[in-house]
Structures are given as C-alpha cells and as structure tokens.
C-alpha cells in the first residue's frame, strides 16, 4: 500500500509558513539596504543602532518588569481562584466563575478604555503600576483556566487521606495539592508572561509617562521608524527564545 504523501506536504507547508518568514526577518536584519527590498550587502549597523537606542532598552526593561510581576501575581491569584471554584459550589462561586470568564470574552479595547477611565476617576497615577494592575486583571483568568483543567484530574481523596493522617488543611494544600498542580500553575504562568509581554491594546490606554513597553514602541515605529531595527530586535528575541527552549529541554532530559 502506498503511504499518502499529504501529511508530508502539510508539514512542509507549516514549516514554510511558520519559519521562513522568521528566517527572512533575521537575514534582512543583516541587510545594508534601508528598506530590505534587495540585498545591499552584509552589515551589523542595525544591531549597532539598536544597542545605542536607549528608548528600546527602557521599553524592554519596562516590559520585563511588568511581565514578571504580572506572572507572579496572577499565578498566585489564578491558582487560588481555581481552587475556590473547584472546592465550593455556592452561589457566590458561580458569580466568581462569571468574573473569571469575563476578561476572556470582553474585547481588549473595552477593558483598556474602561480601566483608563477608572484610574483617572480615582486619580491613580498612570504608569507601570497601572499596567501591572490591568495585566493581572486579564492574566488571572488564563491562569485560573489552566489550573482548573489540571484540577479536573485531581483526586480529592489524597487530600482527605493526608488530613486523616493528621495534616492540617493548609499543610495538605502546601504538600499535596500545590505540587500536583504545579505543572498547571507553571503553564498558566508562562501563558500569563507571553500575554503580558506582547499586549498592546490594553497597555496603550493604561500606560503613563515614562512607562512605554516594547509593543508600544514597536507599533509606533511602524509610522516613521526603520523596519530594519525592528528586524534586528526580532533576531535577538528569537535567539534568546531558542536558547531558553534548548536549556529547558536539556534540564527536563537530565531529570
């Protein structure tokens, strides 16, 4: 019997559409020609320009500060929310459930503008802190969703067993529940990190003076900036991502 070649073509198609554009961007980041239409010779000047552009670094550090603190907070709050939803089936929890779902379905632009109006009404100073609050608001939902998925397979009798053997509820959570849920919590955290680091719409509205993040900078650069510098930035980001993936794979294999 002849094996169908269709899956092979589909895989090739996916590889071409996913990776070739990335490759082109990286190759172009070394291109001398300002607009990257034709190959104008090898150069590192775009990387040089990028490293000398302090606005980029300022934006990047802002993005990282917000993303890391958002990840941490939403991991904690999202897990707590998921456990509460799993454990208690009261009327209040069904309300909580709606609240958790809400940010997933409400359009970003509505969240953004309503948070801005809210912060302005409360006279909160706009800046990294308001971005952080806004990001936590929608990241909690994603973490809670992922952790709730993990809880579906969680057998509550192990908790009961631990408590029968004398552990307090709190110890049982800490020693039994959290370790079992950990992969879900981390997966949720990674999701929160990615969502936070590339959010544009909500961030634009709640950001304040001196708190531009990387997506804001890149979007704004489309108007007048040099696309080659964006290519160089993409090149660096991709390299880092691949290094992190390789390291984490190595770590997992060693275990």
């Amino acid at each position: 019997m002849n094996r169908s070649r269709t899956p092979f073509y589909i895989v090739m198609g996916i590889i071409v559409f996913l990776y070739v554009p990335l490759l082109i961007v990286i190759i172009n980041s070394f291109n001398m020609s300002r607009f990257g239409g034709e190959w104008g010779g090898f150069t590192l000047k775009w990387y040089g320009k990028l490293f000398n552009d302090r606005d980029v670094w300022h934006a990047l550090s802002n993005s990282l500060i917000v993303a890391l603190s958002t990840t941490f907070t939403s991991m904690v709050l999202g897990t707590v929310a998921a456990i509460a939803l799993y454990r208690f089936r009261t009327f209040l929890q069904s309300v909580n459930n709606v609240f958790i779902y809400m940010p997933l379905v409400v359009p970003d632009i509505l969240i953004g503008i309503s948070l801005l109006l809210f912060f302005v009404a409360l006279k909160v100073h706009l800046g990294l802190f308001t971005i952080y609050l806004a990001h936590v608001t929608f990241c909690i939902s994603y973490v809670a969703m992922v952790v709730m998925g993990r809880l579906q397979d969680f057998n509550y009798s192990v908790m009961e067993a631990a408590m029968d053997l004398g552990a307090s509820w709190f110890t049982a959570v800490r020693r039994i529940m959290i370790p079992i849920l950990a992969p879900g919590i981390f997966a949720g955290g990674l999701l929160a990190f990615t969502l936070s680091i590339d959010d544009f719409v909500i961030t634009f509205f709640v950001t304040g003076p001196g708190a531009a993040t990387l997506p804001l900078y890149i979007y704004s650069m489309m108007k007048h900036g040099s696309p080659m510098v964006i290519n160089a930035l993409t090149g660096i980001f991709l390299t880092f991502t691949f290094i992190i993936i390789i390291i984490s794979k190595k770590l997992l294999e060693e275990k």
Partner: protein
Amino acid sequence: MMKRIVLCLLAALVVFAGTSCGKKETELHVYNWADYVNPEVITQFEKANNCRVIMDFFDSNEALYAKVKAGAVGYDLYICSSYMINVMYQQNMLKSLDHGKIDNLGNVDKQYLKLALDKDMQYSVPYMMSFAGIAYNKDKVKNFKASWSMFGREDLKGRMTLLNDVRETVGAALKFNGFSYNTLSEAELAKARDTVIKWKKNIAKFEVDEAKRGLDAGEFFLIHTYNGDALQLMDQNKKLAFAVPEEGTSLSCDDMVIPETAQNIKLAYAFINFMLDPAVSAKNMEYINYLAPNTAAQKLMPEEFLKNPAVNLPASIVKKSDVLKDLGAENVKYSKVWDEIKMAQ
C-alpha cells in the same frame, strides 16, 4: 506561605508606587511617534539643560486623542498631526504659546505658515511635513507630466491607482480643477466628483497599500501615494520616480504642542526652541528623511537631499498646496460625493 505572598505583593506595590510617583523637576515627558527624533539631538538637549527627556509613544493620532481626552495626564509635549491638534485646540486641551519664550520661531518657513491650520503659531509649532504625489515607473510611463491630469491618460488604462481615501482623492480632483482641498462649496465638489468619475474609468482601483507592492512588481505603472512611502519604494527599485503635481497637493504636518495639563512648561518651551535651531532641525531631517518647514535649517541640507522630489517640496508648489483640515460635521459633503463616485459605472 500566605504571609509571604502578602508580603511579596506589598513589596511589589511599594516598588511600583515608588517608580510611578518619582517625577522630578528635571524630566521632560514627550508624547511622540517612535524613532521620530534623532537620538543625538536628545542627548544634546539633556546636556544643555541638565535634564532627562522621556519619550512615550502612540501608534495613531486617533489613539492619542482617545487617550488624552479620557484624562491621561503627565505629558509635557505632544508631537502629532496638525488636523488632530486642531481638534484638540477646539476642545481647549492645549496651552497658548508665549512667543517671547521661543527665540527661534523666526526660522519657521513663512510660506508654509500661510497654509498651516494655525497660521500665527498660537498653539502649535510645525516639526516635520509630508505630502501626497505621484509615484511612477520611468520605463513604462512615456511623456510623464507632473500633473493630476495623468489620471486622465487612456494609454495607462488599468495600470494606475488612486488613494482609497476620500479627502486625498476628491481633493486631488479639486486641485486639478483649481479649488482647495478643504472646500465646502457643493458646486466645486460636484465638478471634482465628475473628474474622479472620469479618472475612475482609467484606474485599476482605489488602493493604499496593495498599490505600492503592485508598482514595485510592475503590475501598476503609476500610483497616487505619499512621499514617505515613495521614498521607500525608490530605494528598493531604481526604475521608480516620484513627482508632485504642479497644480499643488495635500500637505500634512506634525506639530509640537504643549497640553493644558503639562507640568514642566519651562522645559517644554526650551525643547520647542531647541528643535527649531537650524543645526538641530537639520540633524533631524537627516535622520528621518522628512522635510522640516524650517527655512534656516533647509539651507544647511546637502543638495542631494533638497533635490530629491520625494523629500523636498519646491516653494512654488507649497504655495498652491493645502493642509488637510478636519471638517467636523461638514465631512458629510465629502462622504456624499465619495458614495456617488463609488456607485458610478
């Protein structure tokens, strides 16, 4: 565990509160397009005034307006397009400028100011300008004439595009007939409408982005586009050229303004004055490849820059051009004409 979490959260709050409230006397917050000012110039300003310039960015004029209208504060200076500044001014969102504090004001191109929306620089000072025109393929278009009448040429049938933008395209036809881009006269608009309908028979379509790719690939021979885009295309493809129609064109300008909510007004004035300095303005032109309406600075630019029709606009054409103005409720007149054009066979 719980205690630790709460402590961490509190620590995070304190750190954030610290970073977001630490606004110093010596900081200037500029709300601007990204990569729109030469970084060298910024460093120079910081040294001269012993301060820090902090840039924030928006991706469209409309987004900026939505944000500041909703009450976002903390910016000392905006750099954005004239038409949006005009809207903000009408809503009392901008400070009137004290000309005594801007010594370099005399450098601004007087020819340009005659057309500007804010002719006396009451509330805004121009920074950089851009304009629409015609990009074409030198090999394919014979007997090119820098005129809007090119769109009436039947030998180029199906190989041309006009901008899919009511103000730009109806405006080009208005100019072709000798009227203003901002006219409110229905008779003039009707005449422009008939012109566009005649052009429509010759063009392939009304397009913005696809047209640029088509011109580069050889599918289109002549397109209606903006100078900044044409500059990019010409850099890629040596067969292309750009020209500004002799009848005049549409100008748009990015201006510097001080919002009503600005906190560091002294530095904002110093910054405007600094940006108008001829040497500084020339450095910015070199960096972003746009033309600043600054007579003294233009004299410092190399001939190659000033000779490029996709960068420099000859004074004779500036005189005949218009700055697009936000027409508010009167926009209906344009959309009505535009609908008629789209419906016409």
